């Protein structure tokens, strides 16, 4: 036991050391972002406030037409300058960021291989100047110069490019949790317990938040109080949307359900539950009968003999291919046989003996073949999931392979 602990401690120390070394010498886990600026001003007709609306004007009561302009996209604000409009209100500017590591990292490595400082990339204008200097000094040749300036020039379309410490930290946290979950394969341990606690708490919170913003707001509040929602959470709502008061019912049901928390009369919460259990029973009964009973039988109505025609290059039919017909017919016969024997297997009224038993046995064989095929088929997806996780670990975190 102590020996095992020692081994793990050594592995841990070596691992941390290797990570530290890699962190300071490579691009490991570095995440770069580009910003987009928003700076909104509301502009409106310049004369509207100076000259009071004329009484004869029918539209006198309506607001003067105003609009929002993003200064970052339209910094000139031509109409305002020409005096036709004026700024009515200004909002706090904001910037949103987007991950562009995939663009930045290859340029950085190009810089590195050319013997230049990779951190230059974050300031494309300065980087171009440094490339020119390096070219003059003969550190890089002309093809390198044009190539590097062209590549770094592509970054100039972003107003700002920078290292995001939040996201870089995030990559480390994500990597830690990935390893913590995988450590469960060896055995239960404190790292896994921490990861487990975090995932339970955070995902429960996540589902509730998502449920609130998507279902509760969009499917209940918007329907019941479209006016208030248009003024607050969902401004894009149509102006003429009328409230649908039938949605009071689910609201009342929530109240009934939460009555459980009250000291008395908690049994009333069974009402909404019973209502939905009834609806579920009715709805699923029809749904399964239509799609899975009738639908599957209809799909099963296939001919057992399928002649496959041989068509020449010019499009004329040259007759029926014996072998292909045999294959296609065989396939349909197998499908039909598997369905019918499978149904016999599910029979409850008769014991699996005699002819019924033998038929049911064939049914099980087909089920087993199907299960084997489904198992084998699924393995692929599972391995893909693992590859994706490892690609993250090797790419985004350790920077051993190209990032996805």
């Amino acid at each position, binding site marked *: 036991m102590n020996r095992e602990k020692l081994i793990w401690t050594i592995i841990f120390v070596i691992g941390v050391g290797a990570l530290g070394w890699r962190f300071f010498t490579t691009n490991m886990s570095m995440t770069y972002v580009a910003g987009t600026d928003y700076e909104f001003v509301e502009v409106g007709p310049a004369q509207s406030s100076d000259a009071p609306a004329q009484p004869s004007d029918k539209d006198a009561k309506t607001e003067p037409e105003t609009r929002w302009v993003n200064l970052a996209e339209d910094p000139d604000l031509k109409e305002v300058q020409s005096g036709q409009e004026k700024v009515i209100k200004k909002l706090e500017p904001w910037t949103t960021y987007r991950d562009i590591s995939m663009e930045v990292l290859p340029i950085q490595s190009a810089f590195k291989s050319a013997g230049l400082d990779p951190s230059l990339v974050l300031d494309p204008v300065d980087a171009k100047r440094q490339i020119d200097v390096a070219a003059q000094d003969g550190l890089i040749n002309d093809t390198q110069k044009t190539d590097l300036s062209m590549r770094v020039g592509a970054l100039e379309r972003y107003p700002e490019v920078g290292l995001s410490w939040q996201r870089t930290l995030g990559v480390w*946290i994500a990597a830690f949790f990935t390893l913590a979950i995988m450590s469960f394969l060896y055995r239960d341990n404190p790292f896994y317990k921490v990861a487990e606690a975090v995932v339970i708490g955070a995902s429960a919170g996540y589902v509730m938040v998502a449920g609130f913003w998507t279902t509760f707001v969009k499917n209940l509040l918007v329907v019941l109080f479209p006016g208030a929602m248009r003024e607050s959470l969902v401004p894009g709502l149509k102006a003429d949307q009328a409230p649908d008061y039938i949605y009071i019912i689910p609201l009342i049901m929530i109240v009934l359900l939460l009555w459980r*928390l009250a000291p008395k009369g908690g049994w009333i919460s069974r009402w909404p539950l019973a209502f939905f259990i009834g609806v579920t029973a009715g709805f699923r009964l029809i749904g399964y009968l239509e799609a899975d009973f009738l639908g599957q039988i209809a799909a099963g109505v296939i001919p057992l003999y399928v002649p496959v025609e041989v068509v020449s290059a010019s499009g004329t039919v040259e007759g029926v291919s014996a072998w292909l017909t045999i294959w296609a017919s065989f396939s349909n016969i197998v499908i039909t046989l598997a369905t019918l024997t499978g149904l016999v297997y599910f029979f409850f009224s008769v014991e699996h003996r005699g002819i019924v038993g033998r038929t049911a046995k064939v049914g099980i064989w087909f*089920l087993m073949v199907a299960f084997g095929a489904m198992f084998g088929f699924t393995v692929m997806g599972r391995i893909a999931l693992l590859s994706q996780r490892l690609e993250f670990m090797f790419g985004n975190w350790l920077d051993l392979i190209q990032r996805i």
Partner: protein
Amino acid sequence: MKRTIPLLIAIVAGFVVILSTFVPYTESWGEKGMIWFDILAVGAFVLGGGNLLKLHLEKISGQRPGWMYSVIIILSFVITLVIGLLEVGVHPNPMYPEYAWAGNYLEEGAGFWWIYQYVIYPLTSTMFAMLAFYVASAAFRAFRAKNFEATLLLVTAFIVLLGRTYAGVWLSAWIPPTMVDICDFFNIATTVEDWRTLRIDRLTEWLALDGPTKGAGRAILIGIALGVVSVSLKILLGVDRSYLGQD
């Protein structure tokens, strides 16, 4: 009384939904019911979240084994909830810049997004990826030719595993031309196309996507549909009322 009214509610609601599907005017009532259900489920989060908090607070106050992890659960739960509901770091919607609360709660760069991207997603997707290990250990242990059924299961899985990669083509590409040669020997005219089905990759597709899987899958689905009809009817006839609780 405490059981009769809910039973009546369930029966009436169920039969109304069934009948409504046959009347064009009321056809969508069942679907509307499901939308309402989602709303109720969100309301029920109060119960679920409340229970989660209660359980772990009790664990902490009782200093029961593992209470430290309960602290982590409660912290991560509350932090996620607060950041998400208060839309921390979410900008207004660029289309409606003056509405501070109209932004996307999952906006890239915002607090909730960060939690999702760097905490929840890695954790859940790694949990999902663990399946790659479990399929291997399950296959090693369970796929043994103990009897005829088990042999069928294992042989099919074996073929499909091979056929889903390049190995399938590589191992069996010789079969169709060989079959043509054999037929030539018996003076039967065939082409390579006729025997293509015998290649492992084609056989895999037939096994997993056509033939037996399709047929057996159909039998399972038909059986399930009948099972659903029967379970639903038992609920709606009041034969099965285990969900109702006590008087």
